[in-house]
Every structure is written in C-alpha cells, then in structure tokens.
C-alpha cells in the first residue's frame, strides 16, 4: 500500500519552474533514494512532501488522506489542523542538521514530544535516551550541539526526528555538509534504521549508499522524474542516456 502519493505536482519559485509534474508513489516500508544533479528539484520535492513548501498544483496523499488537490488549476490544501496532523507523519533530517543551539542534546530531542504530543518530562527523556543510545550518543545527552562534531549533530537530528514517531522519515542530503570521514557514522545509523522497516525517502549524492540501502531509486533532472526502478535497473543498467552520463560523472570523480 502506498503511504505517500505525489501526483502531477508543480512548483515554481519566482516564475522558475522547479517541479514540472512529479508523479511518485512511496510504498509503506520502502526505502526510496532520490538522486540527480544539483538543482533538479530533489530537495524541493522533499520540502513539498513535509509541508515546508506549498505546492502550486497537483495532489498530495499521505497515508490515505488527501492533503492537497487541484481545484481550477491550483492546489488547495485541507484545513490547517488536519493538514498538520497528516504531515506530522513525516519526519525530516536536514542537510545542515538544524539542531537548536540553545538546547542540550536531550532537550533538542524531548522538546517536540513534550510541546506537541504532551508527553511528560520523564517519559520523553526516557525515550530520548533510548534513541540516543541507538545512534550511539547516550554519553552526549547533556552536551550542547555546538560541542559536537557534524556527524554527531546529524545523528542527534535523526534521533530528534525519530522521537516524534514518524511513519516516513525524509533525509535531505544528510551527509553533504559533513567531512568525508564523518559521513560513514551517519550512513551507518541510517542503514540500521533501514533494517527496521521504517519508510524512508533519502535525497543523496552517495551512489554506493543509495545502491546498498534503497529498494527503489528515483532519478530526477530539471524538475522531472527521468527514471525510476530498482537500484539494479536505475544505477547498474540505466536505460536513459542522461542517467548514464550523470552516473559516469559521479563515479569518475
């Protein structure tokens, strides 16, 4: 069953079309890697899914609920609180981590469960410690983000997203802002989540990682999905010349 459906979605910024009719169906429990050159609209697509950006036209269905649909050529969203409830099923991990610098690692993770879900301090802290343990940072619970390395910050950001129990976790180039020697620890954590049947959508430039973790690969170029299929189909035996050219460039650096 599809947990997230994107149909014929359009988005432009200041007259520049960034998404030109995107159709994408994400199955429950699948791990989708979105690849493609910079500026192809990958991040915008992710932001439209999570509600950070409103779509101009098209349909968005989250877990069976239609969040936006086209009426008279323009996308119309459902009521704010219903939309919020539907989009709460999506978590997001950012390229630049975006941890809250004034809060400790533990507070970063417990803030939303306490403020939004109304959980108690003890309950949310216990859960946060569990999650920190899972990303290997239990010892840093009382540190501040500024005291952590980039890789550690990103692992905290992953734990922070997980604390809200999302059904779909979106990653927007989670390792692009990291030093090469730090990407490994983050990819390892994402991989460990992948084995837990969490639905994931990962925008990434790490081709090897996409091949290893994803069961579905989407190639985007200039606002359109050029090719999609299993990693085997898209990454190893690409049919489209454009995909082949991109992969050659990526792998020959």
């Amino acid at each position, binding site marked *: 069953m599809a947990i997230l459906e994107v149909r014929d979605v359009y988005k432009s910024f200041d007259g520049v079309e960034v998404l030109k009719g995107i159709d994408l169906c994400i199955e429950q429990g699948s791990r989708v890697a979105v690849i493609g050159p910079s500026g192809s609209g990958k991040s915008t697509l992710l932001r439209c899914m999570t509600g950070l950006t409103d779509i101009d036209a098209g349909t968005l269905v989250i877990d069976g609920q239609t969040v936006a649909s086209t009426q008279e050529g323009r996308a119309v969203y459902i009521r704010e609180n219903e939309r919020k409830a539907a989009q709460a099923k999506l978590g997001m991990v950012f390229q630049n981590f*975006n941890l809250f610098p004034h809060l400790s690692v533990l507070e970063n993770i417990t803030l939303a469960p306490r403020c939004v879900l109304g959980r108690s301090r003890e309950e949310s802290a216990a859960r946060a410690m569990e999650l920190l343990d899972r990303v290997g940072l239990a010892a840093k619970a009382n540190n501040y983000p500024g005291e952590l390395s980039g890789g550690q910050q990103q692992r905290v950001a992953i734990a922070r997203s997980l604390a809200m129990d999302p059904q779909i976790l979106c990653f927007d180039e989670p390792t692009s802002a990291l030093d090469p020697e730090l990407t490994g620890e983050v990819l390892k954590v994402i991989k460990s989540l992948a084995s837990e049947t969490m639905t994931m959508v990962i925008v990434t430039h790490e081709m090897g990682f996409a091949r290893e973790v994803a069961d579905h690969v989407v190639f985007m170029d200039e606002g359109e999905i050029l090719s999609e299929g299993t990693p085997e189909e898209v990454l190893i035996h690409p049919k489209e010349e454009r995909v082949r050219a991109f992969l050659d460039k990526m792998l020959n650096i």
Partner: protein
Amino acid sequence: MEGLGTTLGLFALTLLISLPLGLLICSMRMSRILPVRWVAELYILIFRGTPLMLQLIFFFMGLPLLFPGWVMGRFTAAVVAFGLNYAAYFAEIFRGGIQSIPRGQYEAAQVLGLSRSQRFFRIVLPQVVKRVIPPVGNEVVTLVKDTALVYAIALSDLMREAQVIMMRQNNLNAFIAAGLFYLIMTSIFTVIFNAIEKKLDYYKI
C-alpha cells in the same frame, strides 16, 4: 541632589517604555500587512532620523503650539521623547536579532510540529536574546549619558545642577562629582551586561 533623582527616574522610565514599545514596533515592522509595516517604518524613520534634542523640544514646546492648551510638564515631555526615541532604536536591534536566526531553525521546528507561537517563544526568542544583549547594552550605556540632553528644556537633572553649583562655588567639585556619577552608572551597566553575556555563553551559535 534632586537632579540625581530626575536623571535616574528618566533613565528607568525610558527603559520601561522603550523596551516593550520597541518589541511592538519591531513586530509591526516585520508584519506581513503592508500598511502596518509602513507605519512602523515611518515611525523609525522619524525618530531615528531627527535629533533627540529636536524631539525633546517638540514635545515640550512644539506640541502646545500645535494644540493650544495642551501642556506637558518638563519631566513628562522628556520621558515621552526619550521613550519614543529609544523604542525606534530597540525595534531595529530586535529586528536584526530576529532576522539573524537562520531559516533552518524555523523549518526544523515546523517539521517537528511546533506551533507558530511555540516556534517563536521556544526556539527563536531565546536565541534572539543572546544576540541582542551586546547592542542593547550599548544603548543602555548611551542612554545614561543622553539624559543630560534635557538641559534643552531646562529640566533640572544631574548635569544641570552640577553646572549651577559649579558657577556658584566657582570650582570644579560638583562638575567632577557629576562626571564620576555618570562613569559609575555606565560602569555598573557594563558589568551587568557583561555578566548576562557570560551567563548566556553556555552555548555557542
């Protein structure tokens, strides 16, 4: 020594008025409703763009000319002029602070489901406070000294009294005492603001 009370009273009342008013004007200046923004922009243009002394004289002597019979006491006029003037500066300091918070902070909070007000009070405001403490401290120290401008409307503050005594005694004692007092005041506030900065230094941006 009555002048000392005037100086301290003007200083305290100015802060009491201008800090909240500055926050209000800042929020108007950042409003999405254009006319509201224009009002705030005009306010800041006028109060930051003309001398404080001109505003002081306007509220004490100009207003009664415009509205005959409407008279403000010297001290009231001074408080109004200082309060409105400093609010314009604080509004711009607050705006700078709010706009310096990266967009990613709002986005992360939004994806986590925090409401607009939660985003502002839990995420943005605490970080803004840390960022505006140095420029606000600067303004407070400036205000200590700016209070001496009230001599323009013949309000008997510390400075004016010191001058009068100096002329009468024909020596510099009162003048030096007044100078020392301003120095002590500014030093106290410098120490206070340094302490606040240090207290907020538990995290790095």
